[in-house]
């Protein structure tokens, strides 16, 4: 790419469409190292489409996405929505976490020692080291998400991209997963971009907010967002408890 950016990710006037219909238009925002960005908005506001564009699953119909800091779409650790993978899939936890290393050892057919080390570290970090040989299908919902997060961690150079990571989890697992993500952000310096329905949690952990509704309704720091009108609009005038 000719254009350079000082940010890790910068979108300039991005437009995305499905079958000729515009889903998102004129989206501009930036993500710096160490940011915790929450993308919020109603269903159908284009959040998932934007995510797909960031990991190059979808080509923009206009504008551009720039990566700085030596990154590319492939060095993002992606955690898809839970419908993307199969819950009853016959696989060991280790097999799944290791598959996160695929993007980095492209020239090699098999995993290298450093990939195995990386996977072991990711499992350790997520507190699932003792589950390495367990079967994925037998795990609880919370454990499954930790496995998928560990896989994302294997793929992540500096950025984690999480698409509704806590949907369907019980309150304890939700809290645990949020604090794991927050600690990756604070202690490991991992940039976090998260799509979330959970406004209250987003406002607890994030430092930046991107509010989408077919285009950018708001982009800025959490403090600015709290002072803006957009939050109230999203909550339907109920305010946060």
């Amino acid at each position, binding site marked *: 790419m000719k254009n350079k950016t000082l940010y890790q990710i910068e979108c300039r006037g991005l437009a995305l469409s499905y079958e000729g219909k515009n889903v998102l238009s004129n989206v501009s925002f930036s993500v710096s190292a160490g940011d915790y960005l929450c993308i919020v908005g109603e269903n159908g506001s284009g959040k998932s489409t934007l995510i797909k564009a960031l990991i190059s699953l979808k080509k923009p119909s206009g504008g551009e996405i720039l990566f700085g800091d030596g990154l590319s779409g492939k060095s993002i650790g992606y955690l898809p929505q839970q419908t993307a*993978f199969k819950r009853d899939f016959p696989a060991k936890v280790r097999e799944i976490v290791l598959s996160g290393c695929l*993007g980095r050892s492209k020239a090699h057919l098999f995993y290298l020692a450093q990939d195995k080390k990386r996977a072991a570290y990711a499992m350790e970090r997520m507190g699932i080291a003792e589950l390495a040989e367990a*079967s994925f299908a037998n795990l609880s919902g919370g454990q499954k998400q930790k496995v998928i997060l560990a896989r994302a961690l294997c793929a992540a150079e500096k950025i984690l991209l999480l698409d509704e990571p806590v949907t369907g989890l019980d309150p304890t697992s939700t809290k645990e997963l949020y604090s794991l993500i927050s600690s990756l952000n604070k202690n490991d310096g991992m940039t976090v971009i998260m799509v979330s329905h959970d406004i209250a949690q987003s406002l607890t952990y994030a430092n930046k907010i991107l509010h989408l509704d077919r285009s950018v309704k708001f982009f800025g720091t959490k403090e600015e967002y709290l002072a803006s009108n957009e939050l109230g609009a999203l909550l339907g005038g109920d305010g946060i408890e």
Partner: protein
Amino acid sequence: MPQMSLVPFWEVTALNNIFASLGVYFSYKFVIFAFIVGVLVSLCASLLGVTLVLRRCSMIGDGLSHVAFGALAISAVLGASPLAFSLPIVVISAILLLRISENSKIGGDAAIAMISSASVAIGVIAISLTTGMNSDVNSYMFGSLTAMEESDIYLAIALSVFVLIFYVFFYNRIFAFTFDEDFAKAAGLRTELYKTVTAIITAITIAIGMRVIGAMLISALIIFPALGAMRVFRSFKAVSICAALLAVISASLGICASCLWALPTGAAIVAFNAISFLLCSLAGGIIRYGR
């Protein structure tokens, strides 16, 4: 009966007879050909089946086998070589099915159902215009021991070598893209390429195996071993190995049974596949109950 227990099993007359008559059958070249093709095709189908079943697109095998039936029938009418004629048609259909199910508004399952029934209709019309329903047609549908020629063997060997190399060397990639296509794509894997290759080798497997196994039965070889293995094992590697073993054992037993009791070859192989699936379900149930 104390003496009975001292008689080793290979001297029991019934078994002796079975082995003796199997020996006679296997002195015929065509039986050996059918055996080799049947076992290799089963092996390929089972490995492809693991990824197809897990990606919920095993119906593509069913659709392709119906296309193959139509192509075989037309080749018989035209007097063309069955394999040379049907192979390209089935491969093209595989690519088409993949494209249709991804890009169009017709759902994948509906697209497969349309193409299946249209192919069978064309095949049946072709047959009725010429010979009518005869034993040839019967063997297209349910398989025959005598259909294989020497050239088919080389094709079957080449195919299975390719499938084994593909599966072993790209194992990690096949795993990743079977488990989560979006993630694999985001990691830079060319998932479209893998999908197309899988569909094409599935098509070739079906075209080669169809005359031994039968067009109506061959999709069972894709589904049964994978599902059976998944009843017992919980890791991708173990499921792959177990499915391959189940397929090879079922095919060997099926062809032997087909020789001994003059059963239709495909039906015998599928029956053994079904039995192995039931045994796996039972074993799986016992393992889970034991925990």
